[in-house]
C-alpha cells in the first residue's frame, strides 16, 4: 500500500475520532446537554396546546409543589448513583421521618420535631453508609434491607396509625408560599443549588464522581473511599429527612405509609436525566430534568384526563427510551 493512501486513511480516522476539531456545525451542538430540556419543552408545548390550563399560574405552582419531594430525594439518589451505588431506602425513610417528626413535635414542639426528622434520616443514611463502605455490603442489599426495616420501624412506632394534632404553624413548610412560589419548591430549589455547588465545586463532590468512575483508581489516587462513601449515604439520608419533614407538613400528620415506591421514581429521575446507573456520569441539573419530566408528565396526563393507570405505562416507556437513546449515543462515539 502506498504512503499516500495510508496518510489519507490516517487523516480520515483521526478526523472522525476528534469531532470537536473538524466535524460540522451540527455535531458541535452538545446534544447531550440540550436533549432532555428539549424533551421537557416539547412536553410542555404539547400539553399546553391540548389543554391551555396547563400554563395557568395555579397549575404551574401546583406542579412545582408536586415535584418538590421527588426533587429532594432525587438529590440524594444522584449522589448515591454517581458514586457507583444506589439508595433504595429513601421512600421508606420518608415514612420513618414522618412518624418520628410528628411524635417528637407532639412531645417537644415544632423545632424539635423538624430536627428529629432530619436527624433520623441522616442517621439511617449513616447506617447505610457504614454497611456499604465498612462492612462492604452491596449498596443494593444494604439499602434494600433499610427499605424494609425503616418501613417496619415506622409502622411499629406509630402502631400503623396516622399521628394527628400537629401545630398549625407547621403547615407553612408544606402549604405556605413565598410570594407566588410554594415553600416546598423554594426548599427544593435551595437544596438543588447547594447540592450542585457541592458536586461541582468541592473536593467531596469530585470524589463522588471519582468513586463512581473507577473506585479502585480513586483509592489508589489517595481518596478515602470508606469515608466519602459513608458521606454519600448520609447526604442521601439527610435529603430524605428534609423531604420527609416537608411531606409531613403537607399532609399535616405523621404517616407510616408515605413514600411507597418513591425510591424508584427517584432512580428513574436520575437515569432519565442522563445519569449512568453504574456511576460517574450525571449531575444535579440532569436529575432535575428527569424530575421535571416526570412531574410534567404526571400533571399533563392528568389534565388531558389520561388515567393514572395509563400514566404508569407512559412513564415506564419513557425510562426505556431515555436510557436507550443515551446508550445509542454512547455506542456511536
Amino acid at each position, binding site marked *: *500500500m502506498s504512503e499516500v*493512501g*495510508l496518510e489519507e*486513511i*490516517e487523516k480520515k*480516522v*483521526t478526523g*472522525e*475520532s*476528534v469531532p*470537536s*476539531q473538524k466535524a460540522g456545525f451540527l455535531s458541535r451542538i452538545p446534544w447531550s446537554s440540550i436533549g432532555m430540556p428539549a424533551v421537557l419543552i416539547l412536553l410542555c408545548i404539547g400539553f399546553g396546546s391540548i389543554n391551555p390550563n396547563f400554563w395557568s399560574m395555579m397549575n404551574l405552582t401546583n406542579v412545582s409543589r408536586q415535584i418538590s419531594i421527588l426533587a429532594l430525594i432525587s438529590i440524594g439518589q444522584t449522589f448515591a448513583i454517581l458514586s457507583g451505588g444506589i439508595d433504595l431506602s429513601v421512600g421508606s425513610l420518608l415514612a420513618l421521618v414522618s412518624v418520628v417528626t410528628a411524635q417528637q413535635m407532639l412531645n417537644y414542639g415544632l423545632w424539635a420535631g423538624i430536627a428529629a426528622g432530619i436527624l433520623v434520616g441522616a442517621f439511617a443514611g449513616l447506617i447505610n453508609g457504614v454497611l456499604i463502605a465498612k462492612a462492604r455490603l452491596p449498596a443494593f442489599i444494604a439499602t434494600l434491607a433499610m427499605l424494609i426495616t425503616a418501613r417496619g420501624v415506622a409502622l411499629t412506632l406509630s402502631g400503623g396509625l396516622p399521628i394527628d394534632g400537629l401545630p398549625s404553624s407547621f403547615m407553612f413548610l408544606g402549604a405556605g408560599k413565598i410570594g407566588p412560589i410554594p415553600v416546598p419548591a423554594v426548599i427544593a430549589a435551595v437544596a438543588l443549588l447547594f447540592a450542585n455547588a457541592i458536586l461541582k*465545586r*468541592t*473536593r*467531596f463532590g*469530585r*470524589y463522588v*464522581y*471519582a468513586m463512581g*468512575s*473507577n473506585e*479502585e*483508581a*480513586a*483509592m*489508589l*489516587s*489517595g*481518596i*478515602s473511599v470508606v469515608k466519602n462513601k459513608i458521606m454519600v449515604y448520609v447526604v442521601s439520608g439527610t435529603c430524605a429527612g428534609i423531604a420527609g419533614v416537608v411531606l409531613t407538613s403537607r399532609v399535616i400528620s405523621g404517616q407510616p405509609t408515605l413514600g411507597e415506591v418513591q425510591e424508584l421514581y427517584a432512580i428513574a429521575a436520575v437515569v432519565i436525566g442522563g445519569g*449512568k446507573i453504574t456511576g*460517574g*456520569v450525571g449531575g444535579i441539573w440532569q436529575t432535575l430534568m428527569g424530575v421535571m419530566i416526570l412531574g410534567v408528565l404526571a400533571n399533563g396526563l392528568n389534565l388531558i384526563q389520561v388515567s393514572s393507570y395509563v400514566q404508569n405505562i407512559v412513564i415506564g416507556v419513557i425510562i426505556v427510551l431515555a436510557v436507550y437513546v443515551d446508550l445509542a449515543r454512547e455506542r456511536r*462515539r
Partner: protein
Amino acid sequence: MSEKEVRPFVEMRRIVKHFPGVLALKGVDLDVMPAEVHVLLGENGAGKSTLIKVLSGVYTQDSGEILFEGKPVQIRSPHDAQNLGVSTIYQEFNLVPEMSVAENIFLGREPLFIRQFGILDRGKMFEQAREVLSKFDIHVPPETTVKRLGVAQQQMVEIAKALSLNARVIIMDEPTAVLTSREIDHLFKMIEDFKRRGISIVYISHRLEEVKRIGDRATVLRDGTVVGTVPVATTPIDELIRMMVGRDLKDKFPKTKVEPGEEVLRVENLRREGVLHDVSFHLHRGEILGVSGLVGSKRTEMARAIFGADKIDSGEITVRGKRLEIKSPAQAIDARLALVPEDRKRHGILPNMSVKHNVTLSMLKRLARIGVLNLGKEKESAQGYANSLRIATPNLERWVMYLSGGNQQKAVIAKWLGVDADIFIFDEPTRGIDVGAKVEVYQLMGELVKRGAAILMISSELPEILGMSDRIIVMHEGHIAGEFTREEATQEKILSCALGSTPAQQTDMGVEA
C-alpha cells in the same frame, strides 16, 4: 508444493481498524495458506491482537475485506468466524471451571435428545467428546471437571473445542506462555499433526526460538502496518528483530545516567501470608531499580503492599530515613510515593472523567480551601502538567477514555507530578502503548531521576528492564531471588533467576511479554 499455485485459505486485505484516538491497523494484509503455521510477530501495541480479533469476529474492521477460499465474507461475530472455520485459543481460556470437559467442549451446541424440548443427550455428548479427544491424541478424561485440570490440559480442552467445531484455522495467542518445555513439545507435535490434516495455524509468540521451530511464514507488524511477510526458515532471528523494532535498541531506551544519591526507600522483610515472603530491597535517589520476574511472581502485589493498597502482615518500610506505617494509599502519597499501576484501565484512569479531573485528582487538597475548590487554579495546573508531559488531547475536558494508551498513561503520571511525588513505582509502564509513546515515557522517567526522584520499575519485558535499569532485582514466587547491577545483568541470568531453577531448563521458557 509451490505457494503460487495454492490458493490462500484466508486472505485479509487492507484491514483498517481504529479505536478512539488510536489507529490500530492501518491497512493490513494477511494471507493464510492451507496447512501452514503462519506466525504473527510484533511488539506490544503493533496490532497483532487487534488483527486476530478482527479475524475471529471480536472486532469488525472499519474498512478492508476478508476472503475465504477467494470468496468475500462478512465476519460480524465470533459465531460467524466459527461457522467459517476459525477458532481462537486466547491466553485467557474461555472455559467454565465448574463444568466437565465434555460440557465445555460442547458449550452452546450441546447434542440434544429431543431437540424441541432442549433436553440434553449426555450420553451422546460424552461419546462425541471422547471421539474428538482420542482422534487428536489428547489425554484428558471427558468427565473431569475443568477446574481440576492443569493449565496445559485446559489448553488441550480449548483445542479440542476448536477441533470439534471443525476448525480450519486455529488462532493461538501465545500458547506456550503458560507451558513447561515438555508441554510445549507436546503442543508442537499436535500442531504438526494439524498441518497434516490440512488445518492452518495463526501463531502469535514473542519467543523467536520457538517461532523458528514451528513457523512456516511470519508476518511482522509494526505500528499497525505490515513490515513484511517472510519465510521463517531462511530469515535469521536478527532480521526478524530488526523488522519488529525498526530501530536500534539504543534509541529505543533513551537512558539518562544519573549518579545515585542517598537511600530514599528501604523495604525490609515485607511479608504477606501466602503472597510475599521477606521481601527486602533499597532504592536510591536518582536510581531506576528494575524489578523482573515471571507473571505470578507477585511483583504487583509487592508494589501494592508498599503503597498501602493491600495489608501486610509484617515488615518495615523506611522512607527518607523515617520508619513509616503505610496503611493506605493516602498515607503513601503523603510520604511522596506514587504508583503508576499495571492495569491502566482498571486501576489507573478514571475513564469517564475529564483529562483535567484525572490529572488533578490527587492534588485537590492543595487546590481547595475548607473543601471548596479553586476551579481557575485547577485548570491552570492541569494545563501546566498536560503541556509539560505533552498529553495529546483536543482539550482538557475530553474524557480520558478517549485518549490513546500512551496519553492515558501520561495523564496517570501527571497526577503524581502535582503532589511532588519523588519515589515512583512504575508497574509495567509501557504496557499497551505504542512505540513512540514508549520512548516518551522512558524520557520522562529519565527527567524524573535527573530531578532527584527514585524509580522502582516493574516490567515483564526484559529489553525494557535491561535498557532502563541501573540495578535489577528479580522476584520469584513472592521473594527476591537475585540482584544484578546494570553491567552484570544479561537476559539469561535474569531468566534463570526468575525461574528459580537450574540454567538447563531456561532454553524454551521465557518471561511473559
